[in-house]
């Protein structure tokens, strides 16, 4: 005997087109959910790998004796341990310094040091270096060679290269040379017999309990215990606030995708129920109870979700693998867990499938309830119900002010307010995410683009004197060099008036604060260090326009008004954030007018990393203050240039002159750029998924809406509506979805953008929030595209409508 489940299955089989549409929506939702969970899983693996790149320990106990280290190592909740000790900075070649770290073999594991050639240092005269660092010191440096360094205590020591280590990207991108020596040698340098014990805690052990037990049972002071919070957060083991934020963000994103998917499937079911009012009415007339009708609809949901699970999972696997392949191409170092064969995160797929089926079921609940409320009389009449109209309404205004095509569209959507708002809402999610994530990615990029301002390589004089003219020309002629940018730099005393500063800044520089600054007797802020004035060519000044935050960059104005372009300073967050164009900075006795302010620029730290202010100006203004010739030349390489060869040629050119320092940024820049790309892929990947759901939702809604109105459209055509007018009517309806989506997305997204911007960027470097017009334009373009795509299928269906069939009684 057939029950409602059997009937549900029959309906699905009989209405193939509708069922396919339903199943497609569900498949897509499950695919997207699976893809998102897989991406989250991949991102988690990436963050673990990235966090553990330099070190894999979870806890460090500082200054432990050998006995203590032994006791710690024997703990049953410790998976592995090792010992290390930082031995200060050693100077290599006057212009190169190196951080020394001593460790034993277990310590080397904890520090993720892996030998490429040779071996770890065995004796106190040996040192191991990362491959890129060895090349930087001397392009021909190899195992067996020696280097002489000046240690912290000013003594000289010669080490033999025992091994070349695999590169650590973080060190490479920040140009930090790390030298690995024996633990004994480090103890000797530091004149101590204690070292740090590095501990890897077993999985499943609560970190807080572990730390408390160290304090309580082994009488270790809490101040000497350090946690690797980034790694613990990435592994999901940290209760740290910043870790919780990561979990919250990840959970929020997953929920957003699931919510958007629910909205999409809900819409599909809603329209499906609306199409079958007479069928349900007939079933009710034949004796079906409301509960049986609800069960019928819910059963359809379950069947459809089961049909959609397998294709959904397959699509999710494909999407994830395409993404990982792309990421592995960009950052093979961090995505080596993806071997190129099919990556399946079973847990993500199971979660995705379960969540997808549940989401489908939940989506069907409201439509099921609606179906259950259909009365038997609905089957008996051929009257088209247009909603639950309870009272006479004052209609008629719209058709007087709008063309009929627009009026019908608008009126139709007003009758289906819930569906209208829900569909527009799902489209608005993408806009919301674009706006709210933008400050995060902008901050990240600003941090990593720090090195860009110094080009691929740069040469600078140690004492600020000019680089010989002939040498600058020679540098420009090196094969592989694309462009050179000579810059005059002067270290100057710059001050500004205390009264110009805002209250927040004054508060931050008062006595006792980290950036305490005092005003002198003339009311000027007394700076703690020198400032950098940089004179560049007019064309180089014009190139700064993309970084302009306030004012303008006009070389003529700068020349006429003794103007400067101030550089915002990121490292001392309160510094100069309140200065504005029109105000004046005193450099010695000279008053220089601030004409413009640009975003943070690493260039100002080229000569001195404790700069108070950084300022650009024209060569003419610079000459009037300081006659220095160019003391810095930055250069960009051609795309196909071999950076090692160019660097060695630069070293060759500057060999005889100890005042000239040459720095290679190329490798670090490459890593930075790739990291930025990875972050972009993750962030904008999520946003794309959400936006896709919204776009597909509107396409689905429009398609199904038109299918249900075959008769109405036939009538309109019979009454004399041309195909062009029908197209306009459909386009109006779609446009209304887009307009509402844009309104909701921007109304919610712009305030969020502002909040995040102030929190992340203004607080860090003082750049004020301004309306993100380019994001508004991008959001509008995406919305318009979605709207245009959504009418393609409906119009194709409309063209097939035969008027005579549409208007005939069935």
């Amino acid at each position: 005997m057939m029950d409602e489940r059997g009937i549900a299955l029959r309906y699905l089989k009989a209405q193939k087109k509708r069922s396919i549409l339903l199943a497609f929506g569900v498949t897509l939702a499950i695919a997207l959910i699976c893809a998102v969970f897989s991406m989250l899983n991949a991102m988690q693996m990436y963050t673990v790998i990235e966090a553990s790149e330099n070190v894999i320990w979870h806890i460090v106990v500082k200054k432990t004796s050998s006995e203590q280290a032994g006791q710690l190592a024997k703990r049953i909740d410790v998976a592995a341990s090792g010992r290390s000790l930082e031995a200060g900075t050693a100077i290599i070649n006057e212009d190169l310094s190196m951080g020394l770290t001593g460790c034993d073999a277990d310590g080397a594991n904890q520090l993720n040091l892996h030998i490429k050639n040779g071996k770890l240092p065995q004796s106190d005269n040996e040192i191991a270096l990362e491959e890129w660092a060895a090349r930087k010191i001397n392009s021909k440096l190899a195992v067996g060679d020696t280097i002489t360094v000046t240690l912290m205590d000013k003594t000289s020591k010669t080490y033999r290269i025992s091994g070349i280590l695999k590169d650590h990207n973080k060190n490479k991108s920040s140009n930090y040379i790390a030298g690995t020596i024996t633990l004994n040698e480090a103890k000797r340098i530091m004149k101590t017999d204690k070292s740090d014990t590095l501990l890897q805690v077993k999985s499943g052990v609560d970190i807080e309990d572990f730390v408390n037990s160290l304090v309580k049972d082994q009488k270790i002071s809490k101040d000497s215990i350090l946690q690797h919070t980034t790694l613990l957060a990435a592994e999901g083991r940290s209760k740290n606030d910043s870790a919780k934020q990561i979990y919250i963000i990840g959970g929020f994103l997953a929920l957003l995708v699931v919510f958007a998917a629910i909205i999409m499937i809900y819409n599909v079911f809603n329209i499906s129920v609306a199409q079958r009012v007479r069928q349900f009415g007939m079933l009710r007339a034949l004796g079906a109870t409301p509960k049986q009708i609800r069960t019928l609809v819910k059963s359809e949901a379950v069947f459809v979700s089961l049909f959609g699970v397998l294709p959904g999972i397959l699509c999710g696997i494909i999407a994830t693998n395409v993404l990982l392949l792309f990421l592995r191409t960009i950052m093979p170092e961090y995505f080596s867990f993806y071997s190129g064969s099919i990556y399946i995160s079973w847990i993500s797929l199971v979660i995705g499938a379960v969540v997808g089926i549940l989401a489908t079921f939940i989506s069907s609940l409201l439509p099921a309830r609606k179906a259950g409320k259909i009365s038997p009389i609905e089957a008996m009449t051929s009257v088209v119900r247009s909603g639950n109209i309870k009272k006479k309404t004052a209609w008629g205004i719209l058709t007087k002010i709008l063309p009929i095509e627009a009026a019908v569209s608008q009126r139709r959507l007003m009758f289906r307010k819930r569906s209208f708002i829900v569909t527009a809402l799902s489209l608005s999610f993408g806009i919301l995410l674009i706006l709210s994530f933008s400050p995060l990615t902008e901050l990240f990029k600003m941090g990593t683009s720090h090195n860009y301002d110094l080009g691929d390589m740069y040469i600078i004089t140690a004492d600020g004197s000019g680089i010989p003219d002939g040498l600058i020309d020679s540098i420009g002629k090196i094969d592989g060099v694309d462009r050179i940018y000579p810059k005059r730099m002067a270290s100057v005393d710059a001050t500004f008036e205390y009264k110009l500063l805002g209250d927040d800044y004054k508060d931050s520089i008062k006595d006792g604060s980290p950036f305490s600054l005092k005003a002198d007797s003339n009311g000027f802020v007394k700076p703690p260090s020198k400032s950098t004035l940089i004179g560049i060519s007019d064309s180089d000044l014009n190139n700064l326009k993309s970084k302009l935050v306030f004012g303008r960059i006009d070389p003529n104005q700068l020349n006429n008004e003794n103007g400067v372009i101030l550089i915002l300073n990121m490292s001392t967050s309160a510094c100069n954030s309140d200065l504005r164009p029109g105000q004046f900075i005193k450099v010695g006795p000279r008053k220089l007018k601030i004409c413009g302010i640009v975003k943070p620029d690493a260039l100002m730290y080229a000569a001195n990393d404790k700069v108070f202010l950084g300022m650009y100006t024209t060569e003419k203004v610079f000459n009037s203050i300081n006659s220095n010739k160019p003391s810095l030349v930055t250069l960009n390489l051609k795309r196909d240039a071999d950076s090692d060869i160019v660097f060695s040629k630069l070293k060759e050119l500057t060999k005889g002159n100890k005042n000239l320092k040459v720095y290679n940024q190329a490798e670090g820049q490459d890593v930075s750029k790739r990291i930025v790309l990875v972050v972009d892929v993750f962030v904008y990947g999520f946003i794309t998924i959400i936006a896709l759901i919204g776009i597909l939702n509107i396409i689905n809604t429009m398609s199904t809406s038109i299918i249900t109105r075959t008769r109405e459209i036939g009538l309109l055509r019979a009454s004399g509506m041309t195909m062009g007018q029908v197209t306009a009517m459909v386009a109006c309806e779609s446009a209304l979805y887009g307009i509402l989506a844009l309104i909701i997305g921007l109304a919610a997204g712009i305030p969020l953008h502002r909040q995040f911007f102030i929190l992340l960027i203004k607080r860090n470097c003082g750049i004020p929030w301004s309306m993100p017009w380019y994001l508004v334009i991008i959001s509008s373009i995406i919305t318009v595209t979605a709207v245009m795509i959504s009418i393609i299928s409906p119009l194709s269906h409309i063209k097939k409508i035969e008027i005579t069939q549409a208007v005939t009684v069935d």
Partner: protein
Amino acid sequence: MQILATHDLSKVYGKGETKVEALKPTNLTVNKGEFISIIGPSGSGKSTLLHLLGGLDYPTSGSVTIDGTDLFSMKEKNLSIFRRRKIGFVFQAYNLVPVLTVEENITLPILLDHATPDMQYINELINTLGLDNRRKHLPSQLSGGQQQRVAIGRALATKPSIILADEPTGNLDSKSSKEVLSLLHMSVQRFNQTLIVITHNPEIAEGADRILRIEDGVVTEVKAGERHDG
């Protein structure tokens, strides 16, 4: 004055063994102000003929001329425009636009022209149809008879050359049928409309100036003497 003429108008569906001649070559003329009823058994081709006369469907061969214009020589767009201005339709299932009010449904052909309705005429129409107190109602708030009256009003709104009605009382009770019928008669006389009605209702058929019978796609005129034989 001749308002409508057909020349060898025919419609064939399918090919070969499945070929169906829904309408055999038909030559027909209608004068202005005439009331013509079309009768015939189910599946005889009545609706096919009406749809061809209204330009809703394309013939296999032949032509239809209304008010001097050959319908099928026009492009689709021009045919749509011609239809909204010159032909009024009343269908069995009222086929109103559910989201438009009574007044808007009636003025729909004029709104499709982006023109301003002559409200004096429209008001007169609405009053004549007895819909004055339902102007702002939606179709779902009306009875069947009221909805059909709206459809009639829509058909009359542009003062078309010809009104084509496909079983206009088919879905109505006898009282509503009589009301609709009298309205159709009145409008034909009052507005000098030409009316062609498909009907199974002998009363309607008897009230017509001419009766056409269709059987197996062949159109014949029922002579005055044959009328009472049914």
